[in-house]
């Protein structure tokens, strides 16, 4: 075998590996799509994706819901806190990072050290006292415990990410704006925000995904079924499943991730850029 042949074999093997592993990675998801259209008896008898006797029973039963509330009600609940959380996260992260990246003030070094250390502060130590705190102020069984901390810059990761980006942006434009008479708030709004736009989009997208997937928060704080987000509702349906209504559970699970998938496909590049920049820099 000469060098050229060897290189071609090598290339072939690489594609084979990439495609093979890719199929293994993605097959469960494809199976899920097909399985949601299968009958319950077929579900556990064939490994194929295409249903032999397609049925919409899973979806029909899924939409029947629970005590008059259907799946859309629970999905709506999810976005009732996800959307405000995303908006507030972005606003508070931009403001906080602007403060840290562009100004000097008393105690800045100490505060910045605190900011960095909360990046590594495990949520598990905070859960119990946070719960007790939210209980005392009467926020339990509402979405406030999930939204308010984000309003106050609680998602340190995003603050840190934006600080890193801001450090890479030259200050000349702001200085020019200052000479033109822009005050600090105007400089933030007219100069910084437009330049930060790609990073802001990344923050919003990641927070959207993370907040929609969040399970433990709602599990701890929400206790009436009417306010359950779809994640808790799915888990409840799985537990209370008495018959063998498997296709219904799969159909509902699939519908629940469609918004996330749609957002991902619309904004793929922002995700990849965001994760790469955030990761490499921080």
């Amino acid at each position, binding site marked *: 075998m000469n060098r050229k042949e060897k290189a071609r074999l090598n290339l072939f093997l690489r594609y084979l590996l990439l495609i093979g592993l890719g199929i293994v990675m993605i097959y*469960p998801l494809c199976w899920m799509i097909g399985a949601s259209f299968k009958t319950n008896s077929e579900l556990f008898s064939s490994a194929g994706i295409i249903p032999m006797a397609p049925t919409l029973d899973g979806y029909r039963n899924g939409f029947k819901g629970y005590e008059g509330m259907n799946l859309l009600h629970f999905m709506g609940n999810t976005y009732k806190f996800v959307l405000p959380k995303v908006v507030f996260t972005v606003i508070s992260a931009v403001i906080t990072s602007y*403060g840290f990246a562009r100004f000097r003030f008393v105690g800045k070094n100490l505060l910045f050290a605190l900011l960095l250390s909360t990046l590594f502060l495990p949520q598990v130590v905070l859960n119990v006292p946070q719960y007790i*705190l939210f209980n005392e102020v009467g926020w339990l069984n509402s979405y406030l415990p999930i939204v308010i901390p984000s309003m106050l810059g609680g998602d340190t990761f995003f603050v840190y990410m934006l600080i890193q980006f801001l450090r890479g942006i030259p200050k000349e434009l702001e200085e020019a704006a200052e000479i033109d008479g822009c005050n600090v708030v105007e400089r933030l709004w007219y100069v910084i925000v437009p330049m930060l736009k790609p990073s802001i989009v990344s923050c919003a997208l990641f927070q959207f995904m993370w907040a929609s997937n969040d399970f433990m928060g709602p599990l701890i704080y929400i206790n009436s079924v009417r306010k359950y987000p*779809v994640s808790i509702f799915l888990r409840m349906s799985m537990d209370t499943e008495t018959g063998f209504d498997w296709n219904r559970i799969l159909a509902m699970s699939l519908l629940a991730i469609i918004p996330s998938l749609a957002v991902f496909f619309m904004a793929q590049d922002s995700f990849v850029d965001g994760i790469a920049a955030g990761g*490499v820099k921080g």
Partner: protein
Amino acid sequence: MKKKKKGFWKRNIGLAFVMPWLVGLLAFKLYPFIASFIYSFHSYNLFKTASFTGLENYKYILGDKLIVKAFIQTFKYAFLTVPLELMFALFIAYILNDKIKGLNFFRTIYYIPSILGGSVSIAVLWKFLFKTEGLVNIMLGALGIPAFNWLGNPDGAFFVIVLLRVWQFGSPMVIFLAALKGVQGDLYEAAAIDGAGKWKQFLRITVPLITPVIFYNFVTQLCHKFQEFNGPFIVTQGGPLRSTTLVSLLVYNEAFKRNEMGQASAIAWLLFLVIMTFTAVAFISQKYWVYYADEDGR
């Protein structure tokens, strides 16, 4: 610099910008952090006043075989999942980085599990896949391997929750991919002229140059995996024989099922100390294996 003698807020306008964050930090991070430390020395639940019990909670934890087991399982989980995940991530990123056609397509395919993996829907799916009559056993059956009761066997169930995370290697992979792009091509060319094969180039050039990124991925992933909750809670419910009762799940059970807030805080604090210890060791070990090209690196 230009104008002197201004009011406090004029001089410290930045403080005004970080004020909301500071309030949040004090109320939702610092206060709970200290409170949980104090609770951990108390017998405390929501229906009675706290009573100071000293080290009682910690003594109880260290003497309780089931709690110790949860810590051991959490160690095993973290130190099995993180290296596996990072190895896949780095290996695939390395292959993808080498002028592969359809890079974006492959990257998307590998990244999708990371986007969806944390959701309950995927946990539900995994429960289906690994049922005795589920897809995995059907496929193994086609290869002539007898069905295995994954979720009914302690090791099997443990393997299932490990696999659920390893499957999500896409996000460290994207980070590696970005880092690999930064490795200059002429280094490889020089090595190739010297007769180094692909494998040798990978070990001698690629890996050393991206050790900062390996380090970053290792520390962040380890922090997350020590606190794993969704997989054990939804897919295996901590069982069988408590093989998947990881520490986070234990804290949840103590606090929100048994209402033992003091006990739960003590367990959480022990876990915190464990995580801190490993993070500190990782940071100290940096100087022996992490290569920073410039002094600017952390």
